[in-house]
């Protein structure tokens, strides 16, 4: 360090203004929220200190548990879907294709829209009668959500699983008898066809039915079926999250040196080895950022929920932020709302600590 000890205060002078702003607009409200959470307050008259009463009520409130569960649904799906899909799309766009830029721009457009606009668009898409989704599915012959779910389930059991079994069988055969070129292709096609036919024969004797709600039998209740609504909301948020992750990965891919990839080709690595052992490790910083942002975005989920359902029907799609808003500004329970905010603070804080710990370790 070449800064003289006498001038230790210089950085603090520069920091003082932002620090003061941070203290006034971030730290102080957080402290206040903690203080409010121990009171009963309608926001107008004076408040009364009630100790941990709000937290006791909160843990007995079924809506709190619904909201918490929904927050974790958001969290899991927000990491599980946008990150692999975003990576896949980024890999596709990284290859120079004719018209690639146009597709990239189209893909990226949803990212430029605000959540409220997205909520409005998806409300129209989800309209149970005339929405784009319902109309399209009807054109494909699905009369209602129940048929769609049953169709998807049947496809999984009687097509996808047989195909996977076929692939595994070919791999096993491949171990003892080397299959090459046309022979391998023939083995794949014939075995897949065989297993699919076998599965359909099995279907005559064993045809499992998926249990859906009564609403699913009457149409496409994306936003009105309590079992469906949270997933419908998450889907519309994911639609925006995928291009976000894509952009992060595209930037990351620019940082992968082509020489490294070429060297691995020369060494005889196939496409999977190239991806898994060379490119993916190089993308680790982008992955960490993408996961962190997705986790934080999922915990912040509010705009989509508020604009599309306000947490309804009867709070089944509520998340903590939305629950807090309704209790505070609709039901005028500032203390109770603050206690929800405190819980959310600790959940978010936990994730941030993990992230910071990771980041600091690297710097240190």
């Amino acid at each position, binding site marked *: 360090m070449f800064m003289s000890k006498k001038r230790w205060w210089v950085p603090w002078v520069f920091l003082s203004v932002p620090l003061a702003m941070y203290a006034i607009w971030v730290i102080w409200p957080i402290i206040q929220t903690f203080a409010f959470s121990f009171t009963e307050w309608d926001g107008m008259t004076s408040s009364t200190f009630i100790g941990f009463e709000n937290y006791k009520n909160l843990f007995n409130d079924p809506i709190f548990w619904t909201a918490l569960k929904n927050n974790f649904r958001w969290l899991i799906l927000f990491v599980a879907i946008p990150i692999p899909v975003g990576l896949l799309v980024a890999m596709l766009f990284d290859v120079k294709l004719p018209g690639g830029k146009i597709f990239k721009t189209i893909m990226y457009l949803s990212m430029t829209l605000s959540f409220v606009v997205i909520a409005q668009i998806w409300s129209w898409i989800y309209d149970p009668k005339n929405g784009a989704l319902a109309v399209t599915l009807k054109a494909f012959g699905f009369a209602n959500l129940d048929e769609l779910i049953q169709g998807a389930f049947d496809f999984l059991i009687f097509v996808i699983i047989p195909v996977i079994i076929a692939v595994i069988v070919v791999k096993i055969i491949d171990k003892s008898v080397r299959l090459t070129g046309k022979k391998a292709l023939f083995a794949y096609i014939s075995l897949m066809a065989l297993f699919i036919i076998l599965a359909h024969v099995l279907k005559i004797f064993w045809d499992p039915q998926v249990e859906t709600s009564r609403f699913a039998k009457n149409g496409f*209740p994306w936003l*009105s079926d309590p079992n469906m609504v949270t997933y419908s909301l998450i889907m519309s948020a994911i639609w925006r999250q995928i291009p976000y992750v894509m952009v992060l990965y595209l930037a990351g891919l620019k940082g992968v040196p082509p020489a490294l990839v070429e060297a691995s080709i020369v060494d005889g690595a196939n496409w999977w080895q190239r991806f898994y052992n060379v490119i993916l490790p190089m993308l680790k910083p982008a992955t960490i950022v993408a996961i962190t942002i997705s986790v934080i975005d999922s915990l912040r989920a509010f705009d989509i929920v508020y604009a599309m359902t306000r947490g309804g*029907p009867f709070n089944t799609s509520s998340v903590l932020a939305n629950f807090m808003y309704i209790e505070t500004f609709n039901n*005028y329970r500032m203390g109770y709302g603050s206690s929800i905010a405190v819980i959310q603070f600790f959940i978010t804080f936990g994730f941030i600590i993990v992230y910071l710990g990771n980041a600091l370790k690297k710097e240190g």
Partner: protein
Amino acid sequence: MKIKALILTALIVTLVAFGFAGKLVINSYNGDPEPRRVTNLLLEMFNEQYPDIEVELNIFAHEDFKTLIRTWLPSDDAPDVAQWFAGERMRYFADKGLLESMDDILGGEKWNEFFPEAFRSACSYDGEVYFLPESWYWWGVYYRPSIFAEVGIEVPETWDEFVAACEALKVAGYNPITIGTKYLWTAAAWFDLLNMRVNGLDKYIEVLDGKVPYNSDEIKETMEYWAVLVENGYFNDDASALTWQEALQRMITGDSAMYLMGQFIADSFPDDLEDDLDFFRFPVIKEDMGLYEETPIDGWMLPKNGKNKEEAKIWMEFISSKEVQSFIASELGRLAANKDVPAPNAHAQKGLDMIMESDGVIGFYDRDTNPEMANKGMNGFVQFMMYPEMLDQILDSLENDRKRIYE
């Protein structure tokens, strides 16, 4: 030093001068295009009559206003007059000492010069007038006469006739009753009217005041009537995904025949179909029970922390007058609170007649009960409309909320 003193004096003089000129701060929630236009015209009228009073008119979006008013009222610069809703929502503020009584200009006999006696209780707190009614509307069962004619049904008057009409409509391939419960309050209208038909006005006011358990026999009996409609599938089953306007679309396209709604439904109904929209009184369930209706009243209140009390009262008298009330009524097609103002059109006349024949009125569930109870209650009603078999559980849970909120 001298210069500073001079500036200070000048400042004080200006302030005092402005003070003498008279100032009036008005906060209004008429953010929608039509009400906003009328409010601005109203201000012009006021300026012409009282050129000495400098008016500051702040118009807010309806939902923002509801949140913001809670910060204005207790603060030092509260507006001098503010728009609001009669009933419990007004009493909530009066009870906290944030409103000024208007008994000196509207109390006692003076009330009867302007307004019908039936409105007095909704506008009063602790025996004094705290609220000035401007306009009001009624709720009724709106329907498409052409669909009724096609299916061959008469306008139902009793509950049995109503259920029979629903069945006939359903058999004919129509959705008998449309409703959109995304924003909850549409469901509350059914609770209000069924309760008043089954238990009467006095009992229902006790319900609204939080004095009756939600799992009591009275409420259960009410819900059984509602359950008949739900279990027979007379409502659209995607109600919870729809706003009230989206549910109205079903009626405009002719898929649905009926809609329990307030008079403002006419604002959103297409002009070329207006002849094919009519309403009837909510069906009678018990013959010996009086006819009670819902009439939400909108109007003005006088915040205690407002600075210009005299000017505020001038505004109140201005709004009470027959001329101003008939102007608002004719521009917006609502009913004026002033008793001397005639209904602006035939549709409004029919609504006015219905209310005049009735034995008593309330405002609306979410205006007349505690806001938190209203939120929990309406969520419960929406849940009930989706899972009628869970009724007992829902009512028990509402009862827990009621106990916590009121006791």
